[in-house]
């Protein structure tokens, strides 16, 4: 009898079963409640933005990989997640070309040109957002592009804070019943993040320290500055439920390749990013970009933070 051919492979011959792909899909699933809330708040238009964003992220990735003659990996969930997260940052009324440009910049410049998954120093979502935000200020402005959505009215929380007319309750802010981007239901995002953090799908150290940093900063300077015009209108807590703080803490900052690997680095990274997010929000001319620019800056310093290494056992 002929011997059967046996499989030969290196040790270990077991795997824990948790993979990056599974983690990506868990993250996507966790974002679904917030997505539904976005559709409820902003109507079917937001679904179009999300769908287009996801589709164009995956298509761009496939195209890029085909052009570069690399294996096509759109099934690993990463492109889907990038598309989804980017759409969460866009206004529901964003024009189609804006979405397409944003996602393709994210995929091409943010991910593939650096060598694909794992080699990107910046979170691709941020790269995509920053490019379109700086280039098309008006279309990215939630206040301008949501004027015809009936269920919400007024100004976005950050704009109204600057104008001194903020009068939203914590409840509305948490459920995203405000003028904002598709992923404004910060409470749902917080809950999703807590679940993922408890399951260790995301780097929970980053999320926790991010929130601590953001809270501390908003306690120190956030509302104080704004309430000069309209005293007592916003508490530090409400202040961190506004905008993309929750999305940043749980989904943007802990992005695997662009955040530190070692534990000490993670805490520092998260804390600084959270703190900076508020600082940029308060002082810069891009209040809505505080979280994004802060994380981008910390992405840049993440290799540096990773130089704080654990000492191997038995080494002096």
């Amino acid at each position, binding site marked *: 009898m002929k*011997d059967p051919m046996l*499989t030969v492979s290196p040790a270990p*011959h077991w*795997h*824990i079963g948790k993979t*990056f792909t599974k983690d990506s899909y868990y993250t996507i699933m966790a974002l679904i409640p917030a997505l539904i809330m976005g559709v409820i708040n902003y109507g079917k238009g937001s679904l179009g933005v999300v769908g287009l964003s996801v589709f164009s992220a995956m298509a761009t990735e496939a195209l890029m990989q085909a052009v570069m003659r690399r294996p096509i990996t759109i099934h690993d969930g990463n492109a889907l997640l990038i598309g989804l997260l980017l759409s969460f940052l866009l206004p529901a009324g964003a024009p189609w070309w804006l979405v397409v440009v944003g996602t393709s910049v994210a995929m091409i410049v943010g991910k593939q040109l650096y*060598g694909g998954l*794992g080699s990107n120093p910046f979170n691709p979502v941020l790269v995509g957002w920053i490019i379109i935000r700086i280039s098309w200020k008006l279309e990215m402005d939630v206040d301008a592009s949501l004027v015809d959505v009936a269920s919400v009215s007024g100004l976005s929380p950050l704009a109204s804070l600057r104008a001194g007319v903020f009068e939203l309750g914590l409840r509305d802010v948490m459920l995203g019943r405000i003028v904002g981007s598709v992923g404004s239901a910060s409470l749902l995002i917080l809950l999703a993040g807590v679940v993922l953090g408890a399951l260790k799908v995301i780097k929970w150290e980053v999320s926790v320290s991010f929130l601590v940093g953001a809270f501390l900063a908003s306690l120190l300077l956030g509302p104080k500055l704004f309430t000069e015009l309209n005293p007592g209108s916003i508490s530090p807590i409400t202040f961190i439920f506004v905008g993309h703080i929750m999305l940043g803490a749980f989904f943007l900052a802990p992005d695997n*390749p662009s955040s530190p690997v070692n534990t000490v680095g993670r805490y520092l990274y998260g804390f600084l990013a959270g703190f900076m997010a508020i600082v940029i929000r308060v002082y810069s001319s891009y209040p809505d970009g505080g979280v994004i620019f802060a994380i981008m800056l910390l992405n840049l310093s993440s290799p540096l933070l990773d130089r704080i290494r654990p000492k191997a*056992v038995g080494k002096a």
Partner: protein
Amino acid sequence: MRKLIYNEAELMIELIKTPKRVTLLMEQQPGKVCETGLAVGDKVKRGQKVGEAPDASTPSIHSPIAGEVKETIPALTPEGHHTTAVVIEGGEADSEPTRGDENFLSSSAEELRSRLLEAGVGALGFKGTACFAPPLSVKVEREIETLIISAIDEEPILILNQQIVREHNDELRTGVELVRRVTGAKKVVVATTPALKPKVGEHAVAIEPVYPNALPQMLIWRITGRPVYNSKEANDKGYAVLSAETVVSMVRALRDGIPVMEKVVTVQVEASGPRNLRVPIGTPLFGVLKAVGCTLAQGDRVIMGGPMRGMAQFDPHMPVTKSTDAIVHQRGHGVTRYLDMACIGCGACVKVCPMKIQVDMMTRYCEYSLLDNAKSYDLDACIECGLCAFVCRAKRPLLQFILFAKNEIQRQEEELLEA
């Protein structure tokens, strides 16, 4: 993380039918390669010496069956080294007379060592671990401070040493004294699981039964408080590790005069629990698997050694050696596969590493043979437990990268020495 817990069940050691044909590899344990004095056609008795090291430093090899030498052929060891194999096919049942000695403990250490050498006793079990054993056949150069007898199995699902403690308790207790005598160790302790501690007696130290605590480096670290990275360092510092099975085989060799001809192997076949078998050395893999009712199919994976550090074999005729602790069989569809993927920086490997190495960077350097950088990221501290690859979210073959780099470093050092 889900922890890898050691198996602690009680599992009788079963005998299997003596095979008709055995293949005795001339390299079975760390040390010198043995040579055979036999030629094709020679008659062999059961227990007769088949192979012997040229300089009496490595234990001899004995035939577990009576028969006739069919051929001596070049062969590979399970680890992939080139060696010679002596193939013996069964004939009449004819045994060497055994020369036991009830009062062996009264002999001198010199005398005991030469008898152990004759009987083929050397460190049994996984080769990487066997390197931590003191040489039993020659006088130990460096005095041994602490000698650890490992009565706990190294990898999950393996359960042979614990069962040996249960079934050969008297021998083990005598063995502690014997080992002290032979090696001159100052202190002898028996590392075991909390459950087995009372059974072992006064020398026992309980070890938390979680992988990789029973690897030799970890045992030394847990028991003496001093971490060591490899067997050479352990040797320099005066630490040694021996498996309980080895100790029992020493006693059996001296007291009953039985040379080492069998190895206890935990056999785990896909979709059934593990079994402990006493396998004659030289039995081919498929023979062992057949004894537990498993036939190999296309694409299956057969691992010699545990699931974390064992070697997948391509040849179903590969014989069992003195280093074979386990045979693990996985059906083709359930085989885990590694991916050719970049590290995504999730940090799971860093968290799991018992030696606190920054594994993600270290293995990146290993992958591309940047050996100096790998060394600066603590490649030398790695104890090759494989946990990093076990948890890697990108399914990178991390342990393979590490072993490759270590091998490269060793090769370069050897080249330097030659030049």
